[in-house]
């Protein structure tokens, strides 16, 4: 296959993946709607109320057999579609790498970074689906991935191009792959933290009005389980991020620019993200900061992470990390 053919394949695969993700989103929304159906035709199931299952999912209460059967079917279908979209997504990544001459990892610019990062989100979701019972997360994950892919295709798309010289290093592979994995993982953790806050609020409201949580929110794990899930995902992402920005990043920077840490805006924000997440981990161990505040901190961390990736490139012209523009030789005034 020629490089151009690979590139076309990659573009088509992204479009297809986007479409399938979108279908998955529709299915998940239908699932959601089915859960929210009015109470008529439901029976009270006492058994369901007895004790949550071990992943902390609160008891799915009072759903008629037929309706719960439909919900389960839609949920499974949505998951299958997501997994399928993920596979096509992977094809797009491979195509991108094969289209470059010489072949390389598909992490040369923001478009490529974004499609790789979203792929990691999907991959992790699919991989952890069973183990952590992530079914409830479906609409959120797929919604996020579809939106981000759309942004990537519309605003960030760039032709396949060879890497600039400074990017041409084995450290690129290690550094960027770990940054991408961490970014995808933090994003997944962020989704759990968002749900923590949403559910905490809903629970507060429900207690005030004396009602029970209903609909989709009732399927979301209870607060301690959400908190634990968020923690575990973040606890995986944090060392990976540490490895990416505090080990491989500096090693690479040292080889390319002679300084392992230069307080370049990209570095500064990577550091800020790191410190905020360290704060999150502390918060979970500090009375008065557990739960809600910790979740807020996790989201601040996520905001700094994505800002660093997308925002800083537009915001700051001094960053040496800008992907698109080759750094023009910098020469300070020289005394004669």
């Amino acid at each position, binding site marked *: 296959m020629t490089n151009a053919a690979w590139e076309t394949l990659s573009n088509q695969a992204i479009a297809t993946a986007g479409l399938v993700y979108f279908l998955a989103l529709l299915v998940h929304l239908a699932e959601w709607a089915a859960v929210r159906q009015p109470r008529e035709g439901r029976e009270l199931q006492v058994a369901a109320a007895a004790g949550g299952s*071990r992943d902390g999912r609160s008891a799915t209460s009072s759903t008629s057999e037929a309706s719960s059967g439909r919900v389960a079917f839609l949920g499974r279908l949505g998951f299958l579609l997501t997994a399928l979209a993920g596979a096509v997504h992977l094809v797009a990544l491979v195509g991108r790498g094969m289209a470059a001459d010489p072949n390389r990892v598909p992490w040369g610019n923001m478009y490529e970074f974004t499609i790789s990062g979203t792929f990691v989100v999907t991959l992790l979701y699919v991989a952890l689906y069973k183990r952590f019972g992530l079914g409830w997360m479906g609409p959120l994950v797929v919604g996020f991935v579809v939106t981000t892919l759309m942004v990537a295709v519309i605003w960030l798309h760039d*032709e*396949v*191009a*060879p890497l*600039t*010289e*400074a990017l*041409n*290093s084995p*450290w690129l592979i290690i550094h960027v792959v770990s940054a991408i994995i961490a970014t995808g993982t933090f994003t997944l953790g962020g989704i759990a933290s968002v749900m923590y806050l949403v559910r905490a609020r809903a629970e507060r409201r429900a207690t005030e009005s004396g009602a029970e949580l209903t609909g989709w929110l009732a399927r979301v794990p209870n607060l301690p389980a959400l908190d*634990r899930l968020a*923690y*575990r995902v973040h*606890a*995986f992402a*944090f*060392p990976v991020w*540490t490895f990416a920005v*505090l*080990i491989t990043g*500096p*090693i690479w920077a040292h*080889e*390319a*620019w*002679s*300084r*392992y*840490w*230069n*307080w*370049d*805006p990209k570095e*500064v*924000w990577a*550091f*800020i993200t790191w*410190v*905020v997440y*360290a*704060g999150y981990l*502390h918060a979970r*161990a*500090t009375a008065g*900061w557990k739960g809600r505040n910790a979740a807020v901190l996790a989201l601040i961390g996520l905001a700094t992470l994505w800002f660093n990736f997308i925002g800083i490139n537009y*915001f*700051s012209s*001094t960053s040496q990390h800008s992907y698109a*523009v*080759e750094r*023009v*030789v*910098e*020469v*300070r*005034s*020289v*005394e*004669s």
Partner: protein
Amino acid sequence: MTTATERRPGELTARELTRWSWRQLTSMRTALVLLLLLALAAVPGSVIPQEGVDSLAVTRWKDEHPKLTPVYERLDLFSVYDSPWFSAIYLLLVISLVGCIVPRLFVYFRAFRAEPPAAPRHLTRMPVHATFRTEQSPAEALAHARQVLGRRHRLRRTTGGDDSVAAERGHLREAGNLLFHLSVLIVLAGFAVGGLWGYQGGVILVQGSTFSNNLTQYDDFKPGGLFTTRQLDDFRFSVDDFRVEWLREGPRAGQARGFEADLSYRRGTRNPDDYTLRVNHPLEIDGTEVFLIGHGYAPVVTVRDGEGDVAYTGPTPFLPQDASFLSFGVVKAAAAKPGQIGLEGLFYPTFEMIDGDPVTVFGDDLQPTLSMLAYTGDLGLDSGASQSVYVLDKSEATLVTGEDDKPFRVDLQPGDTVDLPDGLGSVTFERVEPWIRVQISQTPGKEVALGGVVLALIGLCASLFVRPRRVWVRALASDGTDGDVPTGDGEDTMNGSGGTLVEVAVLDRSGNGETDQVLADLLEQLQEAPK
């Protein structure tokens, strides 16, 4: 003695106050707040240009914001990361860290040698517990439990007559946590060493020229606070050849890649060596490293004065203005008579006229062209004040004009010579040489910092993934009178009663474990028939 008693109340308060402050400072909450403050304090430096990162941008910013500049300067906003307020935050954090870690080290040391605590009296009151019945005798059940738990736990020594097993695992979590926090200090130390004793210097070297490592040879030099010139290693190197590969097609056509400079270098009086310097592949000479960080063109220009003497000749580095390698430069012929001659203008690597505009269509020097204006008179070179070689002081000089009173253009391609009007002299463009910009630096402490981060990462992983927990198993001879006696045909056990009631409780000490799952797995193992 009496005076001591008199002072005592005040003294106590002071001590109390100190203690109270110390406890506050080393509390988890303070650490958390300081961490968030540190994150916040790092923000301005990413928005405002920093002296240490891009001093050119700082100068530009100051020119554009004359009103804000003094305020920003007072707040150290152009060097945030060296500023007293930024340092104050991380120093407080370090103190808090030490204050937090040291006592924990002692606690850890004691805990490490201590035995797992004995089983609480009522295991069934623990949050995560279970009971089951077995036909084994209590002693058998306990022996089995010891065997099962002993594989992955530390067990409390038994004293005769114990009715329970106490087990504990996961000490490494705390060890990892301590290692992580201590390593943060190591990283800071390595970083500080680099800041104090390191240096970075930059120099532009035209192909064919030689650099020897002493201060006068650098174009710019940034030493650390405690740097001394004795640190400059004794070496020389010359740039024998420089090659660039230009992309001629594809979406990045015009981009340069594959930069390579052939160096021959020599340390002290040792034999010379060769090295091919490339981006991402620095040359290391003892503790000093040489990096290739940029390149450009140096037109070789010869200026003859009105008397026909060569007033200036040599390669003159022009500075690239953007990625097209359109470059700006200055030639100063101070020795020219009757008047000094200065030239200022642009170098086009691949010149072309497009719609009447001169442009360079490629970065490679396929059609090298110089287009400059000439000045004569006093170029300010004799005043003694230092002057940049890239700036022409035109305040006392006059622009050379042609017969039509328009500025006289010196437009040249290699081999061309132009006579300046009024018998001022002539300018010849001989050829083009490439130049490279190298960064020469020492970064002491970088191995320390790297080692520190690696240790920190190891500690972090232990701290995040090891799950510390305690498990207790108690076996009680059951008299079979419980309401819920399960088995019917187990009556032939040794004590002839209804078997043994086994209670199991699990306590997760990190608060993050899946204790229910742990308990379920454990029950399964305990209930398995011993082999």
